[in-house]
């Protein structure tokens, strides 16, 4: 396998709040190969966004990366200064957010913002920057981009704004894009258009993609590999087909069974009891234990170790789902 674009190793990002330490990300490891799409799934509060922000170097106090390593094309990002990170962000590493207005400035015209993005990392003429902007907008499927350039963000629909944010992320052909639920707020036909564009662009440019979502079905359609997060840890990861067809971790198994539209219509869905735990007060052993139907005595003793299989398959569970139940 080619050298990974991104290698996250044992990352821990904690928030030191007045109510105690929130271990939002606690020992997360994964890699992404060039041109590969990794789906990072989990329910709200599981630590997906904090993982993404950690990679981008966007963790502010009271949060801090407390340990671990993040290597982009072999180079360590943990410990870099803000100025050093700014040189990386937007050029070899870019992020797309659920709300495109995290990227866009409401009071500036689209052309101003896009040309600024070009100039942030390249010294080119106004004319060249403008051409790049037009080209980037056309790439993400915005019709008549020359005319749209002089618009303000509020003159665009939500789907269009997200396309502009994607165009900005792609401007310097980064090695890696982190996309944090960028289609969650969009209608299904618009989501589909954006997924199709992103798929095409990443295939063409070899850009690797970390696609953060709570929607397993989007991961199924888009990703090569999937990592499932629960309470700050990746509890299972591997090739999409392996994980979705034969989940080993009871949480992954439960999540798949909770997706409506897959089970027999009208039958009860396989529900996971209880709700997601507060990260400030996790049980000492496996964090999923209070909700787990397969829990045994030893699950409460300590955090389950990482079990590793072939092709990057890994999971944290001492009593995994047997094959005959997983299907």
């Amino acid at each position: 396998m080619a050298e990974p674009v991104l290698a996250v190793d044992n990352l821990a990002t904690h928030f030191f709040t007045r109510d105690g330490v929130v271990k939002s990300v606690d020992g997360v490891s994964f890699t992404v190969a060039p041109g590969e799409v990794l789906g990072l799934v989990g329910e709200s509060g599981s630590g997906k966004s904090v993982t993404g922000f950690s990679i981008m170097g966007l963790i502010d106090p009271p949060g801090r990366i407390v340990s671990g390593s993040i290597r982009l094309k072999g180079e360590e990002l943990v410990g870099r200064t803000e100025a050093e990170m700014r040189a990386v962000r937007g050029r070899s590493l870019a992020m797309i957010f659920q709300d495109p207005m995290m990227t866009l400035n409401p009071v500036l015209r689209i052309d101003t913002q896009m040309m600024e993005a070009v100039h942030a990392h390249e010294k080119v003429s106004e004319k060249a920057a403008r051409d790049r902007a037009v080209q980037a907008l056309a790439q993400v499927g915005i019709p008549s981009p020359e005319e749209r350039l002089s618009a303000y963000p509020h003159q665009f629909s939500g789907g269009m704004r997200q396309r502009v944010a994607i165009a900005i992320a792609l401007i310097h052909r980064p090695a890696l894009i982190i996309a944090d639920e960028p289609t969650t707020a969009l209608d299904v036909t618009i989501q589909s258009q954006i997924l199709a564009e992103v798929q095409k662009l990443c295939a063409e440019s070899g850009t690797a993609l970390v696609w953060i979502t709570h929607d397993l079905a989007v991961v199924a359609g888009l990703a090569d590999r999937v990592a499932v997060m629960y309470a700050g840890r990746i509890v299972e990861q591997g090739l999409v087909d392996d994980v979705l067809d034969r989940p080993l971790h009871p949480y992954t198994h439960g999540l798949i069974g909770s997706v409506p539209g897959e089970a027999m219509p009208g039958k009860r869905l396989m529900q996971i009891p209880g709700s997601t735990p507060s990260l400030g007060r996790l049980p000492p052993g496996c964090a999923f234990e209070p909700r787990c139907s397969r829990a045994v005595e030893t699950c409460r003793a300590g955090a389950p170790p990482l079990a590793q299989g072939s092709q990057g398959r890994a999971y944290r569970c001492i009593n995994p789902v047997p094959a005959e139940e997983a299907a």
Partner: protein
Amino acid sequence: MAAQTTQRPELLRIEGISKRFVKPVDLAGRIANMMGASNREAVVHAVDGVDLSVAEGEVVALVGESGCGKSTLGRVIAGIHEPTEGRVFWRGQDIARMDSAARQAFTLGAQMIFQDPMSSLNPRIRAGEIVGEAPRVHGLVDAAGQAEYVSTLFRQVGLDPDYRRRFPHQFSGGQRARIGIARALAVKPKLLVCDESVAALDVSIQAQVLNLFMDLREALGLAYVFISHDLGVVRHISDRTFIMYLGRVIESGRTDEIFREPAHPYTRALLDNVPRLDARKRSFSTVKGEIPSPLHPPPGCHFHPRCPMAGPRCAVEVPRRTTLAEGRIVACHLADGGVAAAA
């Protein structure tokens, strides 16, 4: 399931329902008018000529993309909005001609559960009072019996009765959804109109709430109008489905039949686009274009600028509703003589 539903007595029927909103000219428009422009107030045709019925115990889904009029139609069905045109019948009686006792039966009988559980719950009122207020006001229970009544409702929706004294912010999203459901159930409704009631919930919690809806249907014989943009949810829970596009119902019928064989090009596009667990590393097929503004819907068939099948007739003539089979209706020229010639 659906075969039996057609024999169950009708609970609610709406005929020719339209709802229009007038959007006044905004400040920028008024200023422009002073300079000689002619901005007029705009009319949004949020719902345009919809017929629909719900039998006792039946689950009817309304689906469609943002702004297509699902919530507006749901509010008309629940008696919250007056329709601009059309009639609403509750157990066969026109609600516009009801005496006050019958009107009260409709008001309590059809309850709405809102899109965002947090914003629909008063943050300063304890959960027990949120649930217990309406049945007390309507004389379904006296002050002495309220605590016991509310405890029963809490148990019914899977909440610990001890939580009655908590405030809304002290609950998780899934628990708040349950409070919203308990509040609606408190007045012994026959029909629940659920507007995106599970959309904001995590999948594992969403599954719990969907299971609860199905249990309540079984236990209380409740009917539902289930509004959702999530086709997986709709397929799972509903007997019949109505698909809306820019205010109009463009296809309706039994859910299993629509999912097996969608007849309208828009329905087909929606179903093709929905991500599925079993569709791996797929190429996402796309419908071209954006959803047009409801302020300026395209003439003829509203879908024609995006439709791969559109012909000359589609841009000028509103498609009629054609019955394909019993209970299966589609509004598309393809099902009604073809798309080629303008009539």
